[in-house]
C-alpha cells in the first residue's frame, strides 16, 4: 500500500469519525480531530508566513552593499513591537503597529466599500428602473427598489413618534420589510445548504472511491 492509499485511508477514517460524531454528539475523538485540523491549518499558515513574508523581508533588510534598508527595517521593527502585546508591562508599545494596521485597513476598506460597492449598487438599482431590459426588467427593478426601502424601514425608527407608538401604516410597512428579509435569509440558507450537500457528496464520493480501491485494487 502506497502513501497515497494510506493517506486516503486515514482521510476516510477521519471523515467517517466526524460524520459519526454528528450522531453521537461531542466526544473525545471528535475533539481530537478538530484539534488536528486547527493545528495543521495553523502550522501551515505559520509556515507560509515565514516562507513568503518573513524571509523575504529579512533578505531585503540589507542591500548588496550591506546597508540597512530603512523601509524594510521599519517593517520588522513594527512587527517586533507587535510581539510585545503579550507582555503587560510593554503592551502599550504594541499599540503603535496596531494603530497603523487598523488605520490603514479602515482607510482601504472604507474607500473600497464606498466606491466599489455602495455607489455601483445604487447605480445598478437605479438602472433597473428602466425598460432597458424590458417590462420584466423594469418590474424586477421596481421590486428590488421596494424591497430595499422596506428593509431599511425595518431598522429605522419612525421620525417624530415614540418607538412604542408607531402609526399603523408604519407597522404594516415594517411587516412587509420583514417579509423581504425572510425571503433573503431563505435564499441564503438554500445556498449554504447546497454548499454543504456538495461537500457531503464530494466526501462521500471520495469514501466510495477509497473503499472501492481497498476492496478491489488494494
Amino acid at each position, binding site marked *: 500500500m502506497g502513501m497515497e492509499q494510506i493517506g486516503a485511508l486515514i482521510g476516510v477514517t477521519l471523515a467517517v469519525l466526524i460524520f459519526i460524531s454528528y*450522531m453521537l454528539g461531542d466526544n473525545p475523538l471528535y475533539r481530537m480531530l478538530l484539534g488536528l485540523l486547527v493545528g495543521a*491549518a495553523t502550522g501551515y499558515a505559520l509556515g507560509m508566513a515565514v516562507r513568503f513574508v518573513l524571509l523575504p523581508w529579512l533578505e531585503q533588510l540589507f542591500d548588496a552593499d550591506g546597508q540597512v534598508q530603512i523601509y524594510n527595517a521599519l517593517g520588522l521593527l513594527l512587527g517586533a513591537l507587535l510581539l510585545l502585546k503579550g507582555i503587560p508591562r510593554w503592551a502599550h508599545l504594541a499599540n503603535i503597529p496596531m494603530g497603523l494596521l487598523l488605520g490603514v*485597513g479602515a482607510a482601504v476598506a472604507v474607500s*473600497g466599500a464606498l*466606491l466599489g460597492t455602495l455607489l*455601483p449598487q445604487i447605480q445598478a438599482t437605479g438602472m433597473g428602473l428602466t425598460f432597458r431590459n424590458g417590462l420584466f426588467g423594469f418590474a424586477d427593478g421596481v421590486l428590488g427598489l421596494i424591497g430595499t426601502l422596506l428593509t431599511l424601514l425595518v431598522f429605522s425608527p419612525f421620525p417624530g413618534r415614540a418607538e412604542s407608538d408607531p402609526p399603523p401604516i408604519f407597522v404594516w410597512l415594517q411587516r412587509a420589510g420583514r417579509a423581504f428579509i425572510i425571503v433573503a435569509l431563505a435564499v441564503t440558507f438554500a*445556498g449554504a445548504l447546497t*454548499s454543504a450537500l456538495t461537500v457531503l457528496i464530494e466526501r462521500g*464520493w471520495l469514501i466510495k472511491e477509497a473503499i472501492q480501491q481497498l476492496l478491489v485494487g488494494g
Partner: protein
Amino acid sequence: MIRCSKCGTLNRDASRFCNECGNTLQRTQVRCPMCGTMNPVGNVFCDRCNARLTPLQGVVPGEEPIAPSEDTITGVRGISLPARASTDVQTDPTKEEIPDWLHSLLEDSSDTTAQPNVVPSSPTDLPDWLGDANEEPAAPPEITLAAADEFPDWLSDIGSEEPAAPPKITSAAADEFPDWLSDMGSEEPAAPSEITSAAADEFPDWLSDMGSEEPAAPPEIAPAAADEFPDWLSDMGSEEPAAPPEIAPAAADEFPDWLSDMGSEELAAPPEITPAAADEFPDWLSDMGIEEPAVPPEITPAAADEFPDWLSGMGIEEPIAPPEAAPAAVFETSDKLDDWLSSLSGVTSAPDDTVQEPTERSSGWLSNLDTQQVPDLSDQAVEQMPEWLRDAAIKRRGTGPLTPPTPAFLADEADDDSPPPDTLPRKSAPARTLPKAPQPESTSSKKKPSVDSATEALPAESVPPGALPEWLRELTPTSEDAPVPQRPSVPLEQGALPSWVAELRPSGTPGLPEIGDGVPPLVEGLEPGELPEWVQEMRPTVAGGSGLSLEEALQSTIAETEGPLVGLKRIIPAAPVVDIPQAYQPRPQATIPESVLDRAQVWQNLLERPRGAERPVALPRSQPGWSEVVTRVFIVLMLMATLAAAFVFIPTGIGSVPLGQPPAQAGIPPLVRTIAALPQGARVVVAFEYGVAESDEMHPLAQPLLNHLLEREVQLKAVSTLPEGTGIAYALLTEAVAYHTSVTDILTNTLTTTLIITESLSYLPGDSSGIAHYLTTAPDFDLLIVVAARPERLRWWVEQNTLLNTPHPTLAVLSAATGPFMTPYLESQSVAGWLVGYPGAAAYAQARGIAPDEMAVRKLDALMLSHYIAAGLILLGMLYSLFAGSHKRG
C-alpha cells in the same frame, strides 16, 4: 490578670470591679477605647493610637480623679444646668457648689432672725447675666484697671488673685459692669483674696472674713445697722429659709419689673429699657427689656466685643430647667433663683416646678432693697464708709435715707406713667404654670448651698452702709415706711394647665393612674397628664406579664410598691415583649417574579464568592437526548441512502445523463467568451480565496477553469490572501499541468514544473490592504479570476479593482453559499462573468460543449436527490411544528 484582694478571683486586666464579689480592683492596665490596646494605668495617651485615655474633665473637689476606662469618652462634657438648692435647709454647703468667695460669704453670715424673708428667684426669672452665672460655681471675675475706679476696693480684690470660672470681662466692657460682675469672669474658682489689715477698716466684717480659710460664721448684723444694709445682704446670714419679702405696693412700683418678677412664679418679661435710661446702662442690661425672657438676646458680632464670654454664653436657647422642688420651702417662684442666690437670700428652692402665683411684686433678694434698710448717712457712718461710697453718701445725704435710684431700664412697665427712678419694679406678667421640666440628675444637695448657711454668711449688720454699687443703690425704695413684702408661707398651688396642653387631651380619654393612698403626692394638686390620642392608640390590649387584661389592670387598686412608679395605681405591667398595636396591619409583601429572584440569587452568589476562590468548573458538555439522536440518525440515513442511490444503484446508462438539467446561469456565457478571447501568452491572475474546508466544493469548480486557461496557453499567476490558498493553488496547478499535455511537453522536469508553479504563487497578507498593494505594484495583467468560497473575499477584490479602475475584466467562480451575496455585483456589471456552485460548473462544461463524465453526472444526481430529501424533511418538520406546537399551546 488582676487578682481581687477580697475574694482572690482573677479578673481581666481592664476590669474595674471584681466579677465575683464586686470589689474595686486595683487596675494595672487600661484598655484604649479606640484600638483596644492595653496601656499602663498612668498613661494619658495610648501607646498605639495616641488616643486619650483620661478624660479632659477636671477633678471635682472631694471626688477621686476619674481613671481611664473603656467607656470613657474623652474631650466632651455635656453642659448641665445647676440643680436647685437642697430641700434640706440645714445642709451645709460644700465648697464645690459655690465659688469660694460666695462660700465664704455664706459661712460668715450671722443669724438672720431679723432679716426679712427674701423671695428667691428662680433662675429662669433672673436676667441672663445672673442666670448664666448659676451654671457653674464661679469665682468673682477679675476686675480690670479700667473698672477699678467704679467699684469699692473690697469688691475689686475679690477673686483678683486667681481666675474664676466665668470668663473675663474685657477692658472695653469693663466700664459697663460692676466689679463684682467683672470678677465673675475669672476662669477658676478662686478663694477670695485675703483682705490685708491695712484695708480691713474699709471692708465690712463679712467681707473681711472672706479671706479666711476656715469657714466662719457670718457676722451678725446689729439691729441698728440692719437698716443700713439691703435685704439681700442681710439675708445672707439667715439660717432658716425665709419667706420672700413682701413688697409693698407703694414700694413695688419703685422696682423694675425684672426684679419684681424674680420673686414671682411666672416668667416675667424683662422690663423695657426707656431710651432715656438706655444710655446709662450697658447693652446687657438693656437687653433685659426684651419681652421674651425665654430667649436671651443674641449677641451680635458688633456687640460681641462688649460682652465677655460668660455673657455671650447666655445665648443659650434652652430655658433653664426648673430645679427640684423642696417640700418644706414655700416660695413665690419655684424655679427662679439659683442656689447661690437663694442661699444669699436665705431662701430655699420650691419643690414644685409649677410657677406659683405671685403674691407681691418682689424679686427676692433685690426686693430687699427696701428703703427701710438704707443705712444712715450720718457723718460718723459716712466716715466709716469706703471712699468709693462716701461721695455717693454725701450726695444723698440731703435727700433722706439712702435709696438707690431705680434705673430707667428697671422702670415699671405695667404703669403707663414712668415710675419714679427710685422705685422697685412692678410685676407685670400674669402668673402661669410652667410645664414639668426634666429634673437634672445632677441636682444634689451637695452642690447647692444651704439656705441657712447662706443667710448666715451675710448678716445685715455686717454689710457696711453704702457697700452697694450705685446701680443697686438706686433700686432701693425711697420710703422708709414701705415694708418689704413678706412672702407668705403658703403651700404651692396648682396652676392651671396651659391651653395648648389642655387641647391635647382627647375627649373621653381616661387619665393617668391615680396616686396610691397613703403615699404623699410629690406635688400637691398635681393633676395627671393626659396622653395624646396617638399614644392612646398604642395601648396594649393585654397587660402582659401579669395575666390581667387591660381593663383589669386599669381597674386594679393595687399600688406599686417599688420602682419609679411606687405608690401609683392602675399601672399596666410591662409586657415581656413589645406588643403589636391592635390597629397594626402587616403590609402585604410584594410579589417578586421568580426570574428576578433567580437573578438576584446569582448576583448574591457572585458577590459572596471570595476572591481567589477556585476557578469555576467548566460546564459539562451537553449531550444530545435520545430524541435528538434519533432525529440525527434518521437524517443521516436518509442522506446516505440518497448518496448510495446516486453513486451505486443508479444504472450506468441512466447515470450518463443527469436526472435533471442544471439551471441556466446568466454569467456562464460571458465567462466562456472572455476566456475564449484571451490571446496566447496573456497574463492571467487567479486568486484562490478558499480554504481546506471548502476545497471539496471548489475543486470541481476551479479545475475545469484552469484546464481551459491552460488550453489557451496563458501565463498563470496564482495568488491568495489565505496562507493555505497557496497550497491549494499548488495542488490544482499540479493537476492541471499533469492534465494538460502542452504544459507537460514544455516542462518535462518535475522539478522545473515545481519551480514554475512555485514562482507563480504569491501570498498576499493583509486582506484588502494586501490586495490593494498587489494591484498597485503588480505588473499589468489581462484578466483577473477570483475563485472564492466566501463573500468578503470576492468583495475585496471587486472593490479594489473598481477603486483602482483597472482596465482588465474580472471573472468570478463562487460557491453555492456565496452566490446570493454576489448578485448585486453581478447586476452592477462589476464582474464580467461568473459561475456558482456545482451546477454552474456542469453548465460551464456544457456551454463549452464538453459532455459531463459519469462522475459528474452521479454527483449531480446525488445533489439533486439530496435537495429533494432536504426539502422534504424541512416540510415535514414545519408541518410537525405547526400541529404539535398548536396542540401544546392549546
